[in-house]
């Protein structure tokens, strides 16, 4: 294994192991998105037809807010005992650290989605009228879109005052096209009118553009002095 791979792997397994033992982030995300589901359900009280129209928006907004919980604690763990400073002076490539953190968040948010999606289906009586398998690429690309920029901006907001609130302020404006693509694709698939191809391609473009940008600029952000 190259040093890049071994460092990525070591950081990723360490983070997953820590999360597995405490389950802090996962539990708070799960409960948070459950609350969002229930509150939205009371606020809108939709019938089956309306549910298909609005569910895409509700699901992704719930996941977006829940993801911020996970993203916020990505780097704070490394601030204790100056782990991040140690990483900065070590010759390890910065991108390895970034990829590990982004993958860790991706796994965490994916687990959340896998657990919450059935609950959404039950509460909103959802049944996809379009090709349901397309929800899988939408979910994967959409989650990556949120997580890759989220991990990057979380590293940026580490250096600011009140960093917990700074992350959504930076992440949400940039994420608008991604969120719109996810919501529209999900709506089209659930209601079965039209094809979601354009939105999936747009999400893919977003992912490629911002993954490249994050990898290219992460070193600059990590070493910023």
């Amino acid at each position: 294994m190259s040093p890049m791979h071994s460092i990525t792997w070591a950081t990723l397994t360490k983070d997953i192991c820590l999360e597995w033992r405490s389950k802090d982030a996962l539990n708070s995300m799960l409960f948070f998105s459950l609350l969002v589901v229930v509150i939205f359900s009371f606020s809108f009280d939709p019938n089956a037809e309306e549910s298909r129209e609005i569910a895409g928006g509700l699901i992704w907004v719930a996941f977006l807010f829940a993801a911020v919980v996970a993203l916020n604690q990505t780097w704070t763990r490394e601030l204790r005992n100056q782990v991040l400073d140690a990483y900065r002076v070590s010759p390890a490539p910065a991108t390895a650290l970034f990829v590990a953190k982004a993958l860790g968040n991706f796994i965490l948010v994916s687990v959340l989605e896998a657990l919450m999606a059935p609950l959404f289906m039950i509460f909103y009586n959802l049944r996809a009228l379009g090709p349901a398998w397309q929800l899988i690429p939408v979910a994967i690309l959409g989650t990556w879109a949120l997580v890759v920029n989220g991990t990057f901006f979380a590293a940026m907001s580490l250096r600011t005052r009140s960093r917990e609130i700074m992350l959504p302020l930076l992440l949400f404006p940039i994420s608008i096209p991604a969120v719109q693509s996810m919501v529209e694709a999900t709506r089209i698939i659930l209601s079965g009118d039209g094809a979601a191809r354009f939105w999936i391609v747009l999400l893919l473009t977003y992912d490629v553009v911002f993954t490249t940008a994050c990898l290219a600029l992460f070193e600059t952000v990590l070493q910023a002095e």
Partner: protein
Amino acid sequence: MIASEMKRAFPILAVITALLLAYSTYQALVVAPTERTMGDVQRIFYYHVPSAWTAFCLFFVNLIASIVYLVRKNPKADALAVSSAEVGVVFCTIVLITGPIWARPVWGIWWTWDVRLTSTLVLWLIYVSYLMLRRFSDSAQTPVLAAVLAIFGALDVPLVYFSIWFFRTQHPQPVIGGGGSLDPRMLHVFLLNLFTFSCFGAMLCWARYRLELLQREVEEVESLQSLRGVPQ
């Protein structure tokens, strides 16, 4: 040498811009013919479009300055980046305020999620978040972080545009403007205003830039004095 010459040129150019602004306002409000269907409300056009143009130019300057800062680490580029972003947000706000004032009598609605309106709003949101980052982060790394965010924002703009363009072409929307040719006198006033607003934006940005440089100088002196233990 050049800096001192520019300092002397500043008041002269400021006076010229002020005169130009007065003349263009007169032209737009009095000289330009009244539009047949829309009436006087159409005159907003002479402020709305030039403001949008100025805002986009300033955001472009911000992107270039940010890239230059990341490459060269020149603090002056960072000062230019922050001034252009601030003045750009002001002009962008003017666009977002004058737009609905015009749209209400003409379209019958204040706002529509049309591609141009929405992408301007998203652009405004991105640059407000840029200014928030600068405000909330007072460490020495702020310029680097802000420059990186400016690049992310610039990458986002075409994606925003495409997503809204596709979204909205699938839905009914109010007709904008319509074809038709512009009265030559209107075009003349419009171009004059476009030029004036560009000058006005550039002057504001320049003033803000000088202020930023002075501010930094003052901060530097103060921190040096406190290091030496000189009572302030």
